[in-house]
């Protein structure tokens, strides 16, 4: 890189790991808008680093059913559903609009299992 020079060991590793990504593509998501978010049925994962999103990719026992198949012993609070659906899915659950009206809704919630009480009600 000409403008930004890696100095410590970690920077050199990051540099080596990201060299595979064409710079122009990294800086221009609109040019590659079709690959910004892809459904897997559209033909596989995009090249380069990507993160599968959505609850169906994550095995999170104790969230929807407990160990006996019921809902009596869920190990996570129900409030977590709201949060997780919003953050990791594109599912429009009934949560505040984080972009326009309630940008700080989750600011105090680093870990839902501990901080879910801090996710407050928002009245439009």
């Amino acid at each position: 890189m000409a403008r930004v020079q890696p100095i410590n060991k970690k920077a050199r590793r990051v540099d080596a790991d990201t060299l595979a990504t064409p710079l122009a593509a990294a800086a221009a998501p609109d040019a590659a808008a079709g690959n910004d978010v892809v459904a897997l049925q559209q033909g596989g994962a995009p090249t380069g680093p990507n993160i599968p999103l959505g609850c169906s990719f994550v095995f999170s026992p104790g969230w929807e059913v407990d160990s006996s198949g019921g809902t009596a012993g869920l190990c996570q609070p129900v409030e977590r559903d709201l949060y997780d659906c919003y953050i990791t899915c594109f599912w429009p659950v009934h949560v505040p609009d984080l972009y326009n009206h309630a940008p700080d809704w989750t600011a105090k919630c680093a870990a839902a299992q501990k901080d879910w009480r801090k996710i407050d009600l928002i009245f439009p």
Partner: protein
Amino acid sequence: MIDGTATAEPQTVSRRSTRFRRGEFHAFAGDGAPFVYMTPSAAVYRLDDASVAVLDTLAQGDCSPDELAQALRSRFPLPEVKEAIEELVRIRAVEAFLETPRKAPPAELPAPSPAALQRASGKRVPLSTLVMNVTSKCNLSCAYCYEYGEDRLSEASDKPRFMDEPTARASVDFMFAESGDQKLVNLTFFGGETLLNFKVLKAALGYARERGATLGKRVEASLTTNATLLRSEIIDWLVENDVGVTVSMDGNKEQQDTFRVFKGGMGSYGTVAPNVKELLARHTRRPVGARVTLTKQNLDVRSIYDHLAHTLGFWEVGFAPVTTSWQRDYAIQEDGFYDMLTQFQSLAAEYLEFALAGKRHKFSNVRDTLEEIHKGLNKSHPCGAGMGLMGVATDGDVALCHRFAGSDAHKLGTVHGGVDHDKQQAWLAEHHIATKTDCKTCWARPLCAGGCYHEAHTRYGDTHRPNLHYCEWIRSWTNTCLEVYGTIAAKRPEFLQQFD
């Protein structure tokens, strides 16, 4: 609840245009040159003028490519700006996103799910260091001691005061059993005063070396002592057995005798100093370091350093503020932390001068941080406690570290029954940096990760809590070390090779 059949479509995005915003980093200068410390990756980069201009412009708010080019056109040719943006995006100092009306700065990363945290912490880390508390007894009565003083964790009465030899041997077996395929294991003796149980300590190391030879593992040994009991024959043994030594010592006579006193109140300097001199004269194969506890009453870092490094001649000198609840008389208060910082900074400046001249400086706090910066350490947990490091109490109970040894509430197993790995994994998941809400927006978190569990326990009664009382201090100190690092990288990069 949603399921895999959810049909919510992402909106069509192709008509929206790209905008840029600043990513998460800490900017600092070294030798006048601009650098960035990338918070998520702990990578350090040096910037040129065009990239600095891009980041400065974005500091005013998000920009489209056109706005950015417009703002910088009088200062830099367009291709230079473009190149700078591309490279900054690659290292994530700049984020490219598709335009959406928004009020807020960058959306934060989603908090990992408990399952993900469990997985992240779930990789079994082999034990690389075992700290053996061979005794909880001490011949000194330092008022600030966390083992004995007002902030002690375990009741001294319900545990044996000395570790016996069978327990020591079992501890060694435990260490090898938990060390996985590590070829090197570190055995550290701690106390109380370790040399009060020299007989068992000696037997334990002998046994460890013998077992290590059979198992094909190297054993590095070290101990911490107050040096009051160092005799010639003990020094002989330390030299012969290549045992690293750290001496807990607070400075010159007046400084040492403020808190480090015998039971009757007599100061220990007169006993310690000659022993230390003999140790330093004869134990030359391993670096011998001094470890200083700073208190409100003993905060003259410069004079302590000069005495220990120069008058006595320790190989290195490290400082730590006393771990205590804030209301104790010896607790360092806010102005004291500031004072300590300015003194650390002045010693760091001296370290830098030495480094640029190719000389070794003995202030180990800088050296340790430089090494972490150089390697780009990005900690999931503040230290190795409960992971690659554990502490054994005198009765063979295994705890997070030596500071928690003997505390039933922080027990992870026993040397006889092994580690309760479920408990260990749960503990690690609970203490992961991602669970520390307050650390989420701090740029120093890759190096600090919330700070010492024992400190948090003493201060707040809870190991989960980040040590908020010294956040500002840590950020200022980390910034100082980054500046030292940047300057060395600019002027004498070969000095940093020692940290490779």
